[in-house]
């Protein structure tokens, strides 16, 4: 166990794809025990890559952590396989709602507990249904035919079945209706509070992410360019301007100005 209360620690990691493409150029971050940490940034900044580096899925896309270290509960895990890492309790909910399309909803959930048996399986399924009552209503449906929101609930429920010690959530709000997003994020908060489950959350929706997270990191072209508590990030003028679309006055930016929008400043290059 780590002494300073962090369950996960990334120390200056570099990630390379196909031995040539350097995607992460020194990322450090911490996830505290039972906290929600948001990882923000534009497309291609390296957010998903960071998650895959942690969960080990990187190795299946011909990527590799070439420098730095990843520590989970005080142990180095960056050399381990995805299978070992998931067995240790880090579960990544990958981007794009990858349900097992040809299985039913309930089968999808049960697959999550492929290591458990009998009674444990049953209580796990009940727990998932308690968090996601909607899934219980559609348990017999083929997962491929569920709506986007249902599929998002399903992949989260499936991950929950593995009894994770740390959940990596990749863009849970992507392409969902606002009401559904609200519901999903309420469940994320509940999971964190009631299960004491630490969550590392990747989100494009900065406003939402900072509303649930306690701490946030901003990633830009493979580097952490800013970090701070959610409150301090929300008040940061650059975050407001570039991610929340607000001017200094806290008012909504007019669309006329957006036309001439030109980024004035990059934090680092």
């Amino acid at each position, binding site marked *: 166990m780590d002494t300073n209360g962090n369950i996960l620690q990334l120390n200056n990691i570099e990630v390379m794809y196909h031995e040539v493409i350097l995607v992460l150029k020194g990322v450090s971050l911490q996830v505290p025990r039972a906290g929600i940490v948001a990882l923000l940034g534009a497309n291609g900044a390296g957010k998903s890559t960071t998650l895959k580096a942690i969960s080990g899925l990187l190795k*299946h896309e011909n990527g590799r952590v070439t420098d730095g270290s990843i520590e989970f509960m005080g142990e180095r895990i960056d050399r381990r396989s995805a299978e070992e890492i998931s067995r240790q309790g880090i579960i990544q909910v990958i981007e794009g709602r990858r349900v*097992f399309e040809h*299985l039913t909803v309930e089968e999808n959930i049960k697959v999550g507990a492929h290591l458990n048996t009998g009674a444990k399986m049953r209580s796990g399924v009940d727990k998932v249904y308690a968090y996601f009552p909607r899934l219980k209503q559609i348990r017999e449906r083929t997962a491929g035919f569920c709506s986007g929101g249902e599929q998002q609930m399903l992949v989260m429920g499936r991950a929950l079945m593995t009894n994770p010690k740390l959940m990596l959530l990749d863009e849970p709000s992507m392409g969902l209706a606002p009401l559904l997003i609200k519901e999903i994020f309420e469940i994320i908060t509940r999971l964190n509070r009631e299960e004491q489950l630490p969550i590392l959350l990747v989100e494009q929706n900065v406003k939402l992410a900072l509303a649930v997270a306690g701490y946030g990191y901003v990633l830009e072209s493979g580097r952490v360019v800013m970090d701070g508590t959610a409150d301090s990030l929300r008040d940061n003028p650059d975050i407001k301007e570039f991610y929340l679309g607000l001017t200094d006055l806290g008012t909504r930016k007019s669309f006329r100005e957006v036309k001439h929008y030109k980024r004035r400043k990059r934090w680092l290059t």
Partner: protein
Amino acid sequence: MEFFLQLVITGIMVGSIYALVALGWTLIYKSSGVLNLSMGELTLTGAYVSLTFYQWGLPFPIALLFTLIVGLVLGLVVERVFLRPLIGESVLTVIMVTVGISFFLRGALGFIWGTDTLVFTPPVFPSQPVQIGPIVIGQVYIWSFIAAIVLLLIFVGFFKYTRWGLAMQATADDEMAALSIGISAKFVYAMAWAIAFMAAGVGGALLGNINGVNVSVGHLGLLVLPAVVMGGLNSVPGAIVGGLIVGLLQNFAGGYLDNLTIAGISIIPGGAKEMFPFFAMTIALLFKPYGLFGWQRIERV
């Protein structure tokens, strides 16, 4: 009419053996995307192994059980030695390796058991045929049918209702997502090969009882290709139905075409039985490229 019924019944009974072998083939394709071209030799291996156990004086059901166990072990070994190092290589490479496995097995089997036709002695099943109404069926067909159906049910049940089976289905569906929740792809591949070896082995043992054991059992095992193509490559029910269809087609071709003469001249001098399933496969592909039960991508609108 009686002749027709006779062909139908025999066709279904032989077809059930093909269905069993085809199921094994489909499991490998579904879970790892590998087109296994060594299925014929796996079948042949099973035939020789079961024959040897039987020749040692074991009762046939026990010999069959041991064949299953040998199949399990061989499947795990072959996967570990030949296929695991290739995870992540292109599919074509892996397919060529399965061709290599088939040649290797054929050579090894010839080396161990020779090339002469071996028969189960004493005959496992009484040669006295059974009369059902107007139809006469050899007992070997009936028992093979029962054995094949029982094993089919066991394998399908395993696939559908156990958590390992569920893990296999999940990997077949989306490998990355399966990995993300900690399903071991290696374990799933190993299991698929083990089941394929077991299914083919028992199929071979049964076919060997019908025709005797020589290289031609391997050719019969290769009939899984038209079976799975017609059924849809990645469908378990498709493999079973495809196997039955191939059995039927074979018997119809043998029954009607091989004896076809017009004005006293034989048009097809024989061999229609072997050829016809492949002919039907080609035609079927023209009209149903996904096969009868193949997955079409689920698209939400």
